[in-house]
């Protein structure tokens, strides 16, 4: 969508080639060695066929023996069979290689996405690029494969066939070239149409995907039905679909127009070659045997040409845009981090921290300065949208401040490898994830490196501390029970899922723990127990608790009050009740119903 610095075909090819080659250099060399052999056999078959035709016309004229004609036929047949066999081997190796390459390209993309700053995923533009890149990943190998086949099979074949034709009549290869160039040019033109199409349809595709989820995904469809909104989403879905279809239709129309013009040229070239051949035959410049052989070779050559130009380059030109986005995504800037290790509990210091989400009109947080002592428990309260969750994500190192800085001890968070920023931290998010995994993995996923060394008792300990009580139904297979409705396992209630997410946070070794509204779905008895256990377990850890349930705030050493992205007060609960009118208002709003 920024047409300014689009990469050219050559640049893309230069990036794709080493990437695909590295998947398995040995197999790569083998595949294309076989391809060269294939080209050689194709050429030899053509020569053998001409030889056979010469023999047959000689035999008819009585100048050649039957035996030598039979030998030339056998030779042709043998070469043909060998060629088919080699072709089969090349295809087999190619299919296998394609599978492995696609997997490797996907892996590369996923790793890249993982290395990017969390905040870029807030940008719809990046999400579009990622969607295109995922499609591009599956075509990188096709690009390299087509190029390698052109180099190893089609070029040698056409050069030889050009010579073969040139010997019969010097004009013939030039007619062939005249056909070739415009068809090639037409594909470059078509690839530009398709790139533009994909850039314009990617949003529609993501919308289609979302509306489809609204209609049928398990997380959505109950509410959609209760609202009676199926018709609404259905119409949205078909709207997006129709708009994309219209764009596709227009592109296809233009693209096919170009293709028809190119094909007309091909046909004209074919007719000219035929005309030249017939005239050569009539003027006695070539024998009837040569005529037949050249005719057969020309037929095959045009078949080969259609194969490479129309089918394979045609497919490639449709996906070139997505391949370009794939490499563009891989080139997205990553933050450079030093390798600093933070051992032991550290103070967390925020100095004038401001943060604005990409594309947002106003900052989510501005000018927050704060010192959280190692081992302190800090509660963060404030109205919806006041910046509490954003603050948590900044402290965890998931986002980077636009202004100001965050220090862990005396090391700025920005200088830490993102891995080591998270290494000492654990968290329960407000919108915790429901991983469709076994009970064990659902807990241990927070510290997977530790899983092999840790006992079941350790995992069960984290679950007990989080108040996850497994009843008979859920635990049919103990920790191996699959927690997933989608994949045929058992499902949990929202409250049980939330407890599981707390267990996950406990299991991870940490010095800082952030709880973002951890008990919203949990009943009063359990909530009471969870908070008490939490205070007992946390020992010398630093904790940040974000909650709207102000009762729990009393556990904290200090309370931070946020309002519209700014700090309005910080201090102990008791002091704030005396000194902050705003905090008193929040407290009273909740506590008066419980007096």
């Amino acid at each position, binding site marked *: 969508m920024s047409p300014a610095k689009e990469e050219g075909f050559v640049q893309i090819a230069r990036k794709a080639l080493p990437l695909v080659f590295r998947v398995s250099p040995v197999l790569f060399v083998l595949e294309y060695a076989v391809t060269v052999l294939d080209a050689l056999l194709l050429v030899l078959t053509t020569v053998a066929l001409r030889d056979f035709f010469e023999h047959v016309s000689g035999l008819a004229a009585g100048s050649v023996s039957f035996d030598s004609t039979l030998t030339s036929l056998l030779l042709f047949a043998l070469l043909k069979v060998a060629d088919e066999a080699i072709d089969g081997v090349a295809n087999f190796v190619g299919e296998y290689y394609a599978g492995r390459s696609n997997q490797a390209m996907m892996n590369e993309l996923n790793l890249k996405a993982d290395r990017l700053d969390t905040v870029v995923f*807030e940008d719809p533009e990046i999400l579009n690029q990622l969607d295109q890149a995922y499609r591009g990943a599956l075509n990188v190998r096709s690009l390299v494969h087509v190029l390698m086949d052109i180099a190893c099979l089609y070029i040698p074949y056409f050069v030889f066939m050009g010579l073969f034709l040139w010997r019969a009549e010097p004009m013939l290869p030039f007619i062939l070239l005249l056909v070739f160039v415009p068809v090639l040019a037409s594909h470059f033109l078509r690839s530009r149409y398709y790139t533009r199409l994909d850039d314009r349809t990617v949003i529609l595709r993501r919308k289609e995907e979302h509306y489809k989820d609204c209609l049928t995904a398990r997380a959505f469809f109950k509410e959609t039905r209760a609202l009676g*909104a199926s018709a609404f989403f259905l119409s949205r879905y078909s709207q997006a679909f129709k708009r994309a279809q219209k764009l596709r239709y227009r592109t296809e129309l233009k693209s096919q127009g170009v293709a028809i013009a190119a094909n007309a040229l091909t046909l004209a070239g074919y007719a000219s070659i035929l005309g030249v051949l017939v005239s050569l035959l009539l003027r006695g410049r070539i024998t009837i045997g040569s005529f037949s052989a050249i005719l057969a070779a020309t037929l095959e050559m045009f078949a080969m040409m259609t194969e490479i130009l129309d089918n394979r380059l045609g497919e490639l030109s449709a996906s070139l845009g997505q391949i370009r986005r794939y490499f563009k995504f891989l080139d997205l800037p990553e933050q450079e981090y030093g390798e600093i290790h933070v051992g032991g509990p550290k103070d967390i210091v925020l100095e004038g921290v401001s943060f604005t989400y990409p*594309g947002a009109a106003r900052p989510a947080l501005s000018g927050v300065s704060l010192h959280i002592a190692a081992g302190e428990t800090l509660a963060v309260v404030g109205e919806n949208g006041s910046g509490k969750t954003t603050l948590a994500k900044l402290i965890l190192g998931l986002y980077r401040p636009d202004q100001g800085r965050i220090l862990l001890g005396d090391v700025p968070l920005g200088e830490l490898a993102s891995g080591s920023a998270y290494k000492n931290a654990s968290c329960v998010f407000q919108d915790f994830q429901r991983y469709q995994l076994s009970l064990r993995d659902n807990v241990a996923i927070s510290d997977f490196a530790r899983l092999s060394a840790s006992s079941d008792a350790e995992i069960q300990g984290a679950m007990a501390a989080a108040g996850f009580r497994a009843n008979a139904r859920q635990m049919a297979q103990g920790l191996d029970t699959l927690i997933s409705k989608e994949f045929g396992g058992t499902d949990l209630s929202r409250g049980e899922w939330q407890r599981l997410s707390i267990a996950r946070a406990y299991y991870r070794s940490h010095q800082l723990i952030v709880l973002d509204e951890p008990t919203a779905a949990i009943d009063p008895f359990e909530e009471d127990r969870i908070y008490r256990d939490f205070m007992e377990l946390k020992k010398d850890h630093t904790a940040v608790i974000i909650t*709207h349930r102000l*009762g729990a705030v009393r556990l904290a050493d200090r309370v931070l009050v946020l309002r519209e992205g700014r700090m309005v007060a910080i201090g102990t609960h008791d002091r704030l009740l005396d000194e902050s009118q705003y905090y008193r208002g*929040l407290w009273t709003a909740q*506590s008066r119903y*419980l007096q």
Partner: protein
Amino acid sequence: MREELQLGNADLADPEIAALLEQTGLAQKVGSLPLGADTPLGKLEPGSADLSEGQWQRLALARSFGRQAKLLVLDEPAAALDALAESRICSTIRDIGARRCTTTLYVTHRLAAARSADEIIVMKDGRIIEQGTHAALLAGDSYYAQMFNTQRKWYLRRQVAEA
């Protein structure tokens, strides 16, 4: 936001939409968006604005109020709401109930909200174990009373909750 609300009731007109956003405390947020109630939400297209978890929940509430239905089922509707918003929502629900004769089924772990209900049903292991008004349930040694007191303990003024 307009579409989010019309999803529940296609006939909502501008003044009603403004009133719903006002009722759920979203009016200020709408005012800050570049295209007001027509700003696309989420992350589907460029120029969208995303909401916080609590603001999404407010929007869901506004949508349910906008349905103008006779039965309102709210399942933990204030889980992500701040104290002020929750208190405001509770009075809105009572207000709607009185004006439109709407029955509300309010599922919650927050007993402060349960208190304002006409009747409270306490469930355990798939069964109804207690039923009655807040005052009646609190009078005896009920399961409800235990729950209420557990929660209340956290809110006693100037007294750190003891185990």
